């Protein structure tokens, strides 16, 4: 693991052990709920960030505009709070990625409302769709708005700050009994997209449903996600950013860091902690500690991108 990310200076023994555990097993999960910094190591990463800004981009996810049930009767309002939070950040991020479920029911008005609020950030936003964004009869609203220049169901790549970003779609053609799905066409495109890239190029893969298997009992994983990860195996730094599960979860496996972001709309239970993954009703006072955004910092000298999860409150 790279030293800077984990802050060689003033690193506590516990943190060292934490890192060692990760390096040793590569499968330890860290689950946090309502904690401003998702992981101990992030604190030192943030300290390093203050010293040398590098490139910072934001991840926002699962805004579910249109959702009005008990778990959060005003999902548009909390999205606006998230955008206000972004606008108040001391360093303006370079751009934003949205990892899907922009809307709850793919209604035109929901897309319009989402756009009206998100555009207040005045940032370029790179979207990938969630399953909630493809619910309209003709499956056209998402594509009309965000599909331009993309392939297939909406996948694409771009370069920023020396990092190669790849937006994948794993919410279409889902098979009975299965998980998220990328499909042969998209995997072939991915392989082609990475061909000839220097292995030292940092890669960011982002998609709605986790590309790693978080909890198959709730469909939290991607059937052919491992095949996508095979294509990035040789790269020195790979970061996988997902949404869908409405909570922060992270694991590190070799050179790959997996991370899921909070929703801006409503929290979902930890795997297996409830009868279903449905919206979780928490005390009103606690809701905003369980919603939020992630900011990701990249510096050329470092292998790992530093991820800071910021809740709306707390």
């Amino acid at each position, binding site marked *: 693991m790279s030293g800077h990310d984990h802050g060689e200076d003033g690193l506590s023994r516990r943190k060292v052990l934490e890192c060692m555990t990760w390096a040793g097993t590569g499968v330890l999960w860290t689950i946090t709920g309502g904690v401003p910094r998702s992981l101990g190591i992030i604190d030192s990463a943030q300290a390093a960030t203050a010293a040398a800004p590098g490139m910072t981009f934001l991840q926002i996810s699962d805004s579910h505009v249109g959702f009005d049930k*008990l778990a959060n009767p005003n999902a548009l309002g909390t999205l606006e709070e998230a955008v206000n939070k972004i606008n108040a950040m001391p360093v303006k991020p370079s751009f934003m990625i949205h990892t899907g479920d922009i809307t709850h*029911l793919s209604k035109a008005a929901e897309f319009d409302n989402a756009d009206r609020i998100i555009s207040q950030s005045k940032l370029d936003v790179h979207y990938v769709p969630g399953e909630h964004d493809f619910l309209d009869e003709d499956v056209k609203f998402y594509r009309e708005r965000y599909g331009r220049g993309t392939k297939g169901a909406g996948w694409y790549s771009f370069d920023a700050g020396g990092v190669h970003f790849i937006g994948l779609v794993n919410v279409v053609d889902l098979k*009975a*009994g*299965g*998980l998220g799905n990328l499909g042969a066409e998209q995997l072939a495109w991915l392989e082609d997209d990475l061909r000839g890239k220097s292995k030292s190029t940092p890669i960011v893969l982002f998609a709605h449903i986790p590309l790693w298997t978080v909890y198959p009992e*709730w*469909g939290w994983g991607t059937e052919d996600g491992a095949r996508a990860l095979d294509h990035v195996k040789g790269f020195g730094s790979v970061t996988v950013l997902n949404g869908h599960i409405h909570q922060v979860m992270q694991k590190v496996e070799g050179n790959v860091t997996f991370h899921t972001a909070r929703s801006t709309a409503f929290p979902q239970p930890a795997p297996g902690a409830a009868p279903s993954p449905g919206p979780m009703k928490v005390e009103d006072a606690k809701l905003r500690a369980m919603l939020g955004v992630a900011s990701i910092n990249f510096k050329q000298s470092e292998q790992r991108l530093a991820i800071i999860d910021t809740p709306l409150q707390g």
Partner: protein
Amino acid sequence: MKTLNRRDFGVALAAAMLLPATTAHADDMEVHIDNFVFQPAELRIKVGTTVTWTNRDDIPHTVVSAGKFRSKTLDTDDKFSFTFTNAGDYKYFCSLHPHMTGMIKVE
């Protein structure tokens, strides 16, 4: 579909009266979606029976049997009905949450 249903309704009703039925009408079967689960997960019905699915979750679901039937997106409390006019096994699932599966066995 409507007229078909009506004709089948008569047949199903006649069949139901001859059977020691535990349900009131053979053409009035229900499946509920609760907590991302189809309940009951498996249903045995007679040809001509209409099954109605009701989504009782806070999250939308669909009811899809490849090549057989496909509901629109069902928001909370939305319903979808399908009349089974042919015998056979109908596996179905939610196309948004594919780990949700169910089966209708039509005899």
